[in-house]
């Protein structure tokens, strides 16, 4: 594929997302200011050369907070998607390989059961039992990714199971697990990549929501959702405190969604031809 044929949505989305990923990566090594230093004298500074995006009510540098907050968001969403892929895809493939069997029914009805609970309620349940932390947020979001990936994998696998090369593989004596791994999985990776980008953006939103209600990463670890929550009381006097983390969330999610759409267009040969 030449650069010219890359969908514009993919370019814009990838650019937006990589800015945040880059900021998060830089923050591991360096931030403009330390994020755990409370300097009350510096509180609520406007934009300035020393503090490009100002400081918050405790005198912490907003830019540094956003950079480290990106770490939290991306890590939580990434691991949650990882859980979803690692558990959901094998389940979906197993269901497709045994279509119509009891196993298929059990897996898919189990999925429906998870879908029947709102994710926030489960998250509250988990944190009520084990205490709020980033790990528990990951767990809560991850659980809800499992049925999503199981469904996508099963849906993508079913039509492939009817193709002749699967029958050929069966006459070559290959079992269901082997066929799923060698033939089915590589042919549904497109679908999974697109779904993963979308789930990734949903994960960032979910992390922000959990942190906002205080169930995500705990202080002093910076988090976009908690920055929003803390800025709430000062929304009329210092609106930038709320606008900046809000903007970060919006841009990151927008970037990932655009990337997901773009990837779908780029990876699906049928859509490519239609353009």
């Amino acid at each position, binding site marked *: 594929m030449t650069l010219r044929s890359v969908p514009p949505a993919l370019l814009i989305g990838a650019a937006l997302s990589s800015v945040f990923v880059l900021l998060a990566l830089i923050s591991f090594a360096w931030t403009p200011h330390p994020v755990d230093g409370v300097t009350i004298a510096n509180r609520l500074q406007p934009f300035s050369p020393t503090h490009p995006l100002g400081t918050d009510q405790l005198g912490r540098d907003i830019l540094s907070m956003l950079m480290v907050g990106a770490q939290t968001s991306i890590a939580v969403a990434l691991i949650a998607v990882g859980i979803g892929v690692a558990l959901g895809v094998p389940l979906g493939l197993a269901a497709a390989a045994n279509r119509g069997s009891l196993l298929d029914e059990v897996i898919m009805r189990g999925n429906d059961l998870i879908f029947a609970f709102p994710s926030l309620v489960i998250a509250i349940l988990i944190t009520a039992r084990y205490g709020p932390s980033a790990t528990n947020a990951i767990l809560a979001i991850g659980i809800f990714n499992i049925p999503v990936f199981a469904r996508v994998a099963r849906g993508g696998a079913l039509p492939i199971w009817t*193709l*002749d*090369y699967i*029958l*050929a*593989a*069966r*006459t*070559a*004596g*290959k079992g269901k697990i*082997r066929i799923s791994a*060698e*033939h089915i999985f*590589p*042919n549904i990776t497109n679908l999974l990549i697109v779904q993963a980008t979308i789930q990734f953006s949903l994960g960032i939103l979910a992390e922000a929501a959990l942190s906002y209600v205080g169930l995500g990463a705990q202080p002093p670890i910076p988090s976009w959702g908690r920055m929003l929550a803390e800025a709430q009381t000062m929304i009329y006097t210092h609106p930038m405190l709320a606008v900046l983390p809000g903007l970060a969330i919006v841009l990151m999610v927008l970037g990932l969604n655009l990337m997901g759409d773009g990837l779908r267009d780029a990876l699906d040969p049928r859509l490519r031809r239609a353009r």
Partner: protein
Amino acid sequence: MIDIRNLSLSIHGTPILRDLSLGFSAGEIFGLVGESGSGKSMTAMALMGLLPRGTRTQGQARLDGTDLLTLTEAQLCALRGNDIAMIFQEPMTALNPVQTIGDQVAETLTIHGRAHRAEALKIARDRLDRVGLSHIALDRYPHELSGGQRQRVCIAAAIALHPRLLIADEPTTALDVTTQAQILDLLKELVAEDGMSLLLITHDLAVVADMADRIAVMKQGEIVESGQTATVLAKQNHPYTRALFAASSHSPDRSETTTPTPLLSLRDVHRYYPGERQGFRRGPPVQAVRGVSFDLFTGESLGLVGESGCGKSTLTRAILGLEPVQEGQIQLIGHPVTPAMPRAERANMQIVFQDPYGSFNPRWRVEHVVAEPFHLLDRRPEGAERRARVAEALTAVRLSPDDMEKYPHEFSGGQRQRIAIARALITRPKLLVLDEAVSALDVSVRASILDLLADLQGELGLSYLFISHDLTVMRAITDRVLVMQAGQIVEEGATEAVFTNPRHPYTRQLLAAAPRLPDTIGTRDDALV
């Protein structure tokens, strides 16, 4: 009535049609014959004004004096369905599955503002009666009908407004022979009674020989020969016409290789499917195969003929040991064939499928594809040995060993079918099951694959089980033939004997329905001239 003059057409600079001229009048059936890629469908699309983006045309295509190529999209919309109508190859996808057939036929009338819904439905009823569907209610959905009935619905919709020209693009290719014969008869009758013209596009010479008043033979975007059907078929002035002919009735030279040792034997095989789910229960089981017994001898080519739904695919899957039989037994070289059979025994039997496009994992290189059945062997060749074996198999099917580095999409349909045969040969099997293996190929490609199969049989002492609905192929390549109907073998015997002297009424029906090239053909110094 239709007058195409010097039509040239290119898409994004690639020439598709070159200087095409043809014409025919009302009440005439014009046959356009050619292999895939010859531009025959594009000619139809040019008449309909349905050309893809990036198309440039030159020349004229006149319908009763109006040049269709100069019309605007709005003018074309008024024309489509009204003056020119079209039916397609695949009746399964040409109808909208969520609309009733009555609505779909009536749609043509309401779109062109000829009638209101109620009136349109009345006319739709009339047209459906006309195409022989008087027993089918208007509120039925496409999935409730058979393939032939669906094609009739498409025809009813096409003739709803009495078009002047009906274009039929491979209208019977997806249908069984008996259904094909009925649809062709219907089209002939409609032309005779309504005085419309029919442009029949097909790859099957036998179909046009029977139907068309005049034909044109197309090759690579050009008409190489045209004229009265009988004259063209009898004289065959152009070498391509002759080649096409030779290929359609091609019968490879085969040496007698049958020995009296049975290789595969089936005894009273029954196969059931669980019935359809009705709420929480299942309906009674469906019997797909009922008591099939036969022997296939070493070195023999055995044909299994039947129309869709006769149970031949279900039987094939049992013969391959992919699904269990419910009663009876299948043996390969004295060992029972079951889903649990040892891998090494499976290596004795391999399969080649119909669709050269769906039979390979698109992400695998040819080497990987061809080597897949090695999985059956206890000692799997690796590295250089594996490559040597793959090269050997590719050479056997007359491909180059260098092809193993390529991906399947880099090959044409015929070459893919050769790759599929190479894959089947890699474990040096004794039995090859050929499931409609040449049905999707052009006649000339089909002839070369049949030659290849005949040669391989001589070289490697293979036995073949041909499964097909195509009687011409059966006659060309098999020693013995089994005719299957509704899960049972109704007739069995030496191919020539069954074809010349069928005993069972169903066999007779099949043979009568199959379109045939007239016997006069092929002799160039013919009395017709």
